[in-house]
């Protein structure tokens, strides 16, 4: 408690470092904290899925096909007698892996493109932005479908497909922030002090555009998980034996009138996960924005 009071004092007197201030703002934001807690639980589940899940991912119990929730199978079993709860737990891992790696790829490529085009402007900027205009003109789910359809399904292709849809979005957002920062005088001052372009980009501009990057990453993960589920649902995702929420929805669809739990629980998992990432993303955005922070 002591520490908390001291932190309050520091925050009021304005002597926190910028990062401390953001952390402080998040610690005061219940919405962001709930999102963060839920994501922490998801990460824990994803890492220790083997130990948490009561049954294996592919384990079938053919005597108990399409069984309603019981003490033995808390969320029931599907048409092949697989435990729904276990598959949702393993699905957490699939979803998080896809979400995080798709966003990482998109961020790495889109980030570099955005930095370069926002900083150097001119012909490079025009080229990069026109290409990203083309990418943005195609609905990203359609783009992902096209890529998966032509290169085949599978985890890797799915991640790449979702990442490509996100590259242009990241490039756009980072470019605009870089442009604002580049106009500021400390960038000119650091040119005047003899810093090279590379140094200015990495040491001075990048730290100043981190906030939109973090916010967009958090929201981007939510989007990627949804896209993966969408691809799974229309049958362009992973092979049927892998546990994936979208896939579970789509295979449960045939039984939606009789065995509702087959679609409700994976649907809930998707919804709650995306809600958590969005809540965290909004919370971080507000924390970085001093105008929102003081409300």
């Amino acid at each position, binding site marked *: 408690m002591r520490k908390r009071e001291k932190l309050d004092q520091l925050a009021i007197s*304005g002597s926190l470092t910028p990062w401390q201030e953001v952390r402080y703002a998040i610690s005061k934001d219940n919405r962001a904290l709930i999102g963060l807690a839920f994501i922490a639980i998801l990460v824990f589940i994803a890492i220790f899925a083997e130990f948490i899940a009561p049954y294996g991912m592919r384990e079938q119990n053919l005597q108990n096909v399409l069984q309603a929730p019981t003490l033995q199978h808390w969320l029931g079993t599907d048409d092949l007698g697989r435990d729904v709860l276990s598959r949702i737990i393993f699905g957490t891992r699939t979803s998080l892996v896809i979400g995080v790696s798709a966003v990482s790829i998109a961020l790495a490529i889109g980030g570099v493109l955005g930095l370069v085009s926002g900083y150097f402007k001119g012909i490079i900027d025009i080229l990069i932005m026109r290409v990203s205009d083309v990418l943005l003109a195609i609905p990203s789910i359609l783009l992902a479908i096209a890529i998966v359809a032509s290169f085949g399904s599978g985890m890797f292709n799915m991640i790449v497909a979702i990442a490509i849809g996100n590259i242009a979005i990241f490039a756009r957002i980072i470019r605009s922030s870089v442009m604002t920062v580049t106009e500021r005088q*400390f960038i000119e*001052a650091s040119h005047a*002090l003899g*810093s090279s372009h590379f140094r200015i980009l990495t*040491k001075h501009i990048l*730290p*100043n555009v981190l906030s939109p990057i973090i916010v967009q990453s958090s929201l981007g993960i939510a989007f990627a998980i949804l896209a993966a589920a969408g691809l799974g649902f229309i049958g362009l995702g992973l092979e049927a034996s892998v546990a994936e929420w979208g896939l579970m929805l789509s295979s449960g669809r045939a039984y939606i009138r009789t065995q509702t739990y087959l679609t409700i629980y994976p649907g809930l998992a998707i919804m709650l996960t995306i809600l958590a990432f969005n809540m965290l993303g909004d919370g971080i955005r507000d924390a970085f924005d001093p105008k929102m922070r003081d409300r």
Partner: protein
Amino acid sequence: MSLLEVRELQTYFDTRRGVVKAVDGISFTLESGKGLGIVGESGSGKSQTAMSIIQLFQHNQRIAGGSIMFDGRQISDYTDSQLEAIRGNEISIIFQEPMSSLNPVFTVSKQLCEVLITHQNMSSEDAKAKAYEMLKAVKIDQPERVLKSYPHQLSGGMSQRVMIAMALSCNPKLLIADEPTTALDVIIQAEILKLMNELKEKLNTAILFITHDLGVVSKMVDNVVVMHGGKIVESAPVKVLFKSAKHPYTKRLIAAFLKTDIRRANEGETLDFFEAENDQYDFQQFRDRGVADDDFYQVSAGHMIACRLKKK
């Protein structure tokens, strides 16, 4: 040999509507350890002259002609990486807005050390010690606290002191001060100017002082160049300029400055301003036609004026 020798410098902007001649054929020299002031109204090209020296350019800006000799080297021909070695090391610059010249996400210590580590190859320990020393040299109380501070925790005057410390930390031969006190109040302004004067004596740094404030110029420099429309209108030792400015533009500039000084105004300085309005130097015309021909007329040693006045 002079420390800085600018010859017929032309700096142009290529815009969609054509070429803008921000600096159009100006020449001046600056000896080491001396001060040179460039004065003129907004848009006269004084800042662009300074930026041209270390080529801190917008992407559509270029040196169109002329040469810049610094310390015996023709730096107007240097490549980017050669310039990077000079910027902040041999030639430093301080800007008008001290508050926005510091990166908001790093502490003062980190930013001061960065310069030292880049240019002097210091270890981070040495750099920290030197940073502390520099803050003391610019007369900051409690240097330890300021080193740990972020820019938003400093006042304008403190930030400018930090900027001066940063600019001088590599012992530059030339310091370019681009309106360094414009954003500060008069008391802080006086302190900063005094400090710069002291450091100039101590470190034997030449100062190129860019300002529109003639009062500041009188305290800081030995020679003054008056610019208008990208050209030099008049250049003279500072005392000569104040006593016997010849060019009508300079007279107007001085008159405008002295208007606040009631005693001097009554002595007829402002009268000159109105008189000039009636003769061939009609102010509107003055602007429309550009300032003067490129030929200069020498009034006395070191006192040159753009020669349109000679025709009078």
